[in-house]
Each structure stands twice: as C-alpha cells, then as structure tokens.
C-alpha cells in the first residue's frame, strides 16, 4: 500500500497491556494507514477491544508505544486526543437532546453557536437524521441512536474514528444496511476508521484491511482476500470463514508435506461416485444444509470431515450418498508445520 509510505494514522510498537497476570494484549505491532477502513477481528477476550481502548486513551499500555499521526500519545488523556469513539451502547447523553449531543465536542472547543448549529445539522444530515435535533435519545430507535452516535463522533472531524462493535446491537436487516452506509460515510469524510467486531462477515465485507486477534496476540493482518484465501494459522482459517482445516497426516498423504493446510469449501468439486473407477477421493455425505443459492455438504472421508459448497440444484447429492471430491493443488493453502 502506497499510503503506508507516509506517516501511518495509528501505529503500535510492541504494545502490551497486562491486568495483573492476565495478558489482555501481548506485544502488538500494527500500522493503520491514513484513510483506511481497518477492522480488528477476534472472539471475545481476544484483546481487540483493549487495543481500541488503548488508542482512545481509556487505558494505558503496560509497555510499548502508540503513535497517532506520528505523535506519541502515552500519558495523553482521552480528551486531548484527536480521536473519537462510537461506543457499543452508543453512550448518548440522556439529559441532552440530539443536537446538544452532537454539538457537545464543539461546545467544549468554544466554537460559536452559529457554527456549532451549522456543523451539527450537517453531521446529522450526513447520517440521514436531519430534523431530529430536538428529540431526546430516549425517543429514538436503536438504529437512530447509532446514527446520532456516529454524527456526534464525527462532527469535529477527528483524525481517527474508533468504532466498538458498532453494529452489534442492531438486528440483521438494519446491520446490512448500516454496513453499506458506514462505507459511504467513511469515503465522504475521508477519516481513518478502525472498527472492532467479532463478526468475520462484517470485517471481510467492510474493511480495507483486517487484523485478526486471539488471546491478546495479533495473528494475521491483511486484506480480506489475503486473510480469507491465505490464512497463516489454523485459528485464522477456522475463525475467518468456514475453511476446511486439513490435519498434517491428511496433507502428507496427498502432497507429501507434514503441515496443516486450509481448503475453502467452494474450491471443492463434488461429483457422484460412478462405477469402480479410481477417483481421487471418495466420501459419504453425512450432512446437508440448504443455504439458498448454495448447499453446504458435510462429507466424511473415512475419519476426516470436509465441508463443500455446491450449487443448489435438483440433483445435489443427498445424505448417505457416496461422492467423489476434486480440487486443484493451488486451492490448498499450506499453513504452519505441525508442532
């Protein structure tokens, strides 16, 4: 990425955060480029939220250094960081109306009343809430509150916007809609977005780059495609998407290398086992899940279970049927050696 050549928006250098014996974050090195839409992905307790809170300034690293646009921010309180956050529960101020919520940061910066109102109205318009200024947060729906939180956090044009599980509290339909809107908003504002999520689909579909966390460690950083196609570890392969993780014994029998490997379900060709020919691999369909356009099959290869995705046609294999499997060697992605 060419943008990384300039000063990164956020950079973490061997950052650790320990709570007593618990290592919430352990030796993280990470750079987020200016204008990037960056996702931090991981299960709960993986350290992704701690990482976000360190950048916001709510917590201090036990060791290591954090820079925002080149400025070291250790010991800088959150209220002096030009970084804003959209909270998971939105954290709107219940005693203020929507406009006062959005104007809050401008009011603290002693921006005059006219400018404040103009900026707030513009920010609300951007999140499609123009005219909602006089309502109280309690009178809004969940989706509307989320938009107010966005407007409030972006009204003063921060250098970086942090979003903590921004869509976690919304229902499915609204979540998909907001995914698109967030992308558009980020393009319009040109602000670096860093968002935390445990939903791999969300991370892959929205982010320019994704960082995968597990147990306080950074497992892999890359574009969604890299993460999805070339996971560097069993954890990533497992957590991102539903890749088949092939055990070393299996891989050795086929490719002569004792390593873990991943194989995406849609890269497997499934055909009915016909006659007594010598197929590459045969197995028995043990499960069948209809997903709409596609159907996911669970296939038992004499002890190894593989998932394959086939088109949902009339003659898709059914449970108990013997099938042959084929895939190109390129589709098999080698990962770490066994150990």
């Amino acid at each position: 990425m060419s943008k990384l050549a300039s000063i990164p928006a956020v950079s973490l250098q061997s950052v650790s955060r320990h709570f007593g014996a618990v290592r919430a974050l352990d030796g993280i090195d990470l750079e987020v480029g200016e204008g990037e839409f960056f996702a931090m992905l991981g299960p709960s307790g993986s350290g992704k939220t701690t990482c976000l809170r360190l950048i916001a300034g709510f917590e201090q690293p036990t060791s290591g250094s954090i820079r925002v646009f080149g400025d070291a921010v250790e010991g800088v309180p959150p209220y002096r960081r030009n970084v804003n956050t959209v909270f998971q529960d939105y954290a709107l101020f219940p005693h203020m109306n929507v406009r006062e919520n959005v104007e809050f940061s401008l009011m603290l910066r002693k921006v005059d009343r006219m400018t404040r109102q103009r900026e707030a109205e513009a920010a609300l318009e951007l999140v499609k809430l123009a005219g909602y200024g006089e309502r109280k947060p309690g009178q809004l729906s969940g989706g509307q509150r989320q938009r107010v939180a966005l407007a409030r956090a972006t009204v003063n044009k921060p250098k970086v916007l942090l979003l903590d599980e921004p869509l976690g509290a919304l229902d499915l339909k609204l979540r998909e809609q907001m995914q698109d809107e967030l992308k558009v908003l980020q393009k319009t504002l040109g602000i670096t977005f860093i968002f935390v999520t445990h939903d791999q689909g969300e991370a892959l579909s929205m982010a320019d780059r994704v960082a995968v966390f597990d147990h306080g460690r950074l497992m892999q950083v890359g574009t969604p495609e890299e993460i999805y196609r070339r996971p560097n570890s069993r954890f990533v392969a497992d957590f991102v998407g539903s890749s088949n993780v092939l055990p070393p014994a299996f891989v050795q029998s086929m490719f002569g290398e004792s390593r873990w490997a991943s194989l995406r379900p849609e890269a497997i060709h499934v055909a009915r086992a016909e006659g007594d020919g010598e197929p590459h691999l045969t197995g028995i369909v043990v499960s069948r899940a209809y997903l709409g356009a596609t159907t996911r099959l669970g296939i038992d290869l004499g002890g190894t279970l593989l998932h394959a995705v086939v088109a949902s046609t009339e003659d898709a294999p059914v449970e108990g049927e013997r099938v042959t499997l084929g895939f190109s060697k390129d589709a098999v992605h080698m990962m770490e050696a066994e150990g």
Partner: protein
Amino acid sequence: MRNTPRASWPLKLAAAAGLVFMLAPLALIFLYAFSTEEKTYQWPPPGLTLEWLAVAWQRPDVWKALTLSVQVATISTAIALVLGTLCAAAVSGSRFFGRETISLLVILPIALPGIITGIALRSAFSLMEIPFSFWTIVLGHATFCIVVVYNNAVARLRRTSGSMIEAAMDLGADKLQTFRHIILPNIATALLAGGMLAFALSFDEVIVTTFTAGQQQTLPLWMLEELIRPRQRPVTNVVAMVVVVVTLLPILAAFYLSRGGEQSVAGMGK
C-alpha cells in the same frame, strides 16, 4: 401484562385497617390544632377555632426554635450534600480497595441507635474541649445526613452508564467538564431528593441533638420539653401541625422527583 388477582375480603380488611392505623394519628394532629379546648386533650373537641394559630404566631420562643432548626437543617444539608456527593463520586468512579469500608462508615451513624451516636459525640466534644454551640449541633446532624445524600447519589450513579463518562472524555471534556456537563445533570434530581430527605431528617432530629446542643433549643427540643412538661397545649398542637407540614412537603417533593427517575427506568424495561 400481568393479571392482577383479587384479594380476599379478610386480607383487604386487614390492609385497610392497617392503613387507617397508619394515617389516622396524623390526621388527628391537624384536627387538634383547631380545638377550642385549652387544658386537656378532650375528644371530641368542644369547638373549632383559628385563635391558636395567631397565639402561636406571636410566641418568640417558637420562632427562635424554628429559626434555629431551619438554620441547622440548611447548613447540615449543605455539608452532607458536598461530602456525600464527593464520597459517592469516589466510590462509583473507581474500584479502590476501601469502598466497602467507606459505605459502612457512612451508614454507621444511622445504623447505630441515636443515643450511642449522641453520647459518643458528646464525649468527643468534651474531650476536645469544644463548647456546645450552633456548630456542635450542625456537626452532629451532618454526621447522619451524609448517608441519605450518599445513598441517593450512589444509586443514581450506578444507573449512569460508565461509557457515558468515557464518551464525554472522548469528545474532549476533561475531568471537571465531565463532572459539570455530564455527571452533575444526571444526578441532579437524586441530589435534590437526597438533600430534601437530609433536611427533613435534620429538621426532625431530637435524640442526637439532646446531646450536642447546649442551651439552644431546636424545634424538636422545644417539642420534647412541651411533651414532658406541658405549658400551653394549644400552642403545642399548632406547632405539631406546622412541623408535620414542614417535613411532609419535602418528602412529597422527593417522592415525585425519585418516582420520575424510576419511571424512566421501568419504561426502558418494557
């Protein structure tokens, strides 16, 4: 949402009788204030008159006691508001080791019988050679008023989401600005309710006051004197009524204030 079953007659009757038992004595106070009878507590009152209101109005000793009580209650409440709010903010804002101890310390003065608090303070004053004065009464009252403010503020702060304070800091508010713009407006009604209860508590206090007051008489001390050695019963009747009104108004107000808070919480649950 929830079907309300009907209570059986004996149960209803017992509850109604209970309510009458609770409220009738208070109603009686209002009636006696207008009785024409001077020397006894005769029932039914031989007649009704407004005369005693005027007589009580012109009694300098009643005014003096009333003034002292209002002053003591005002200053004690002010002290309790400051100390109670500070303690509540400290306890809820952090998880330091001593928070349980602080809670216990604050509650102790009303958990122990008043007579123990009274004697302990009296002996402390004499030990430190502090002469009894207006301020010794205030100190005694503030001691047990803190808990009311503290409890109200802690309860409200607990309902105030922690991320709201982080949000304020995130948007550029320093500690003081966060307190002024976010915390204070959110706990204002709780503080008002707590302050009113503290005022009522102080205005009515007699047990601790007997030990911390010197020659000065608060209104409850005046009442106590009248109860033990009645001098002019009709004046006592009028004062009793006034005291009930003065204490009940803030209680009713506090009730409406805190009810508003609870309703919004209940509303969120629905």
